[in-house]
């Protein structure tokens, strides 16, 4: 590592001063240290906000929170790939691209931009409310222990429960765009998670109804990018296929019993 002291990490950031202003690119050179991640590089920019041309500028604005890839707040495009900045280790990136190669940071493109790398993810949270992605057990008195979930269901349900609504799957999905209202892959898997839970199951019709509204599961075009980019390795395409079966069965049953 000694040979790498005195070297710089070169980053190029897609910046935007406000929701309606024009985007522009800006480069920064940060002194290299081993074991950095994209978050710590951006923190260095904040300490000394001088761009590659030596001009003092406003520090780059971004969001981060947990720093261990469980909250999703620092999701951005890193060299064109949607992923969490905290889990993007500089040395690992250089292993692939070569030491010192420029690292390009950009905000996700499927969400409104607030400033620089900070985006507005309200749409995803509103859609989680729409599909009722929770188990409704809150009451004013203690109730008995809930039913147990069989081990074979826990195995796959746990993996869905790791979803942090980071937006990577929405970013990669060609059918999530400003021309469609598709709620996106993550939310379809969430419906399966809460419809499988023995208590959540009591509201499964509500979730299936929500999944068949405008922008629902029918908007999936099977491009299958969602699964490739999911940082939590949720097999979204399998869950979408399963929910395709469930919504179809539910549609037929609703029609027959109407």
């Amino acid at each position, binding site marked *: 590592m000694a040979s790498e002291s005195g070297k710089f990490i070169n980053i190029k950031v897609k910046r935007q001063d406000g929701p309606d202003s024009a985007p522009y690119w800006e480069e920064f050179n940060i002194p290299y240290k081993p074991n950095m991640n994209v978050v710590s590089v951006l923190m260095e920019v904040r300490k000394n906000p001088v761009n590659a041309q030596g001009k003092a500028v406003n520090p780059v604005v971004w969001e981060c929170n947990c720093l261990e890839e469980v909250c999703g707040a620092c999701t951005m495009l890193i060299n064109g790939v949607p992923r969490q900045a905290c889990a993007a280790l500089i040395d690992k990136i250089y292993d692939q691209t070569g030491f010192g190669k420029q690292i390009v940071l950009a905000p996700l493109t499927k969400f409104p931009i607030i400033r620089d790398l900070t985006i507005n993810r309200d749409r995803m949270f509103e859609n989680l409310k729409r599909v009722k992605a929770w188990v409704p057990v809150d009451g004013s008195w203690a109730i008995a222990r809930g039913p147990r979930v069989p081990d074979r269901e826990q195995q796959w349900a746990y993996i869905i429960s790791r979803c942090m609504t980071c937006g990577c799957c929405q970013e990669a999905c060609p*059918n999530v765009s400003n021309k469609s209202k598709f709620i996106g892959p993550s939310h379809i898997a969430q419906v399966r998670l809460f419809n499988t839970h023995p208590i959540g199951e009591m509201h499964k019709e509500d979730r299936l109804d929500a999944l068949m509204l*405008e922008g629902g599961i029918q908007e999936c075009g*099977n491009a299958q990018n969602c699964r490739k980019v999911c940082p939590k390795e949720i097999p979204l395409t399998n869950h*979408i296929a399963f929910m395709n079966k469930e919504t179809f069965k539910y549609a037929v049953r609703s029609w027959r019993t109407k």
Partner: protein
Amino acid sequence: MDKKSNFLIRRIHSLLAIIPIGIFLLFHLSLNTTVFWGSANYEAVINFMKTMPLVWALELIIIFIPLLVHAVYGIWIVYVAKNNVLDYKYGANWAFYLQRITALITVVFLVFHVYLQRFMVHEAADVISGLTGYLQNPLFFALYALGLLAAVYHFCNGLFTFLISWGITIGDHSQKICRGISLVLFVVMGVWGVGILTAIAGF
């Protein structure tokens, strides 16, 4: 279900592609296979088909209306997608993109195909002799084969995604097997279709 939802139309769009359009495509290729045994053979089969009662109603209900519904709504689906194959170079994403490209090629091909071989001339003998003349032009042959291959790809890849969209293939294993079957089917139907064109060009 909400009245505004497109769930029903998306499922109808998907179903029509297999029943009846996909079945018709296989039937159409099967009938045309008779050209391998000479143009007289082909003409005899087509003339027999025309003796079927209410053949115009069958054409309308089994072919024209389903194709029109599938094409019109399908063009909307093509418009809505924001393709990103250059950013996400995965096989399935390319298949998704090609499904939309071949959709548009197939629409153009079918308009041309139906005009040329159904409305401009309708007698079996005229259809075959006219087509023989056109297909001897290498450029026409290439464009015609491209249209045919686009339609065949759209059907075979569509069959694979149909199985997912209806929740028939759910797990990785079944999806992988059906992806393979869809590819083999594409090769078989592609060779079959171009073989028919080659036979007609040789008359």
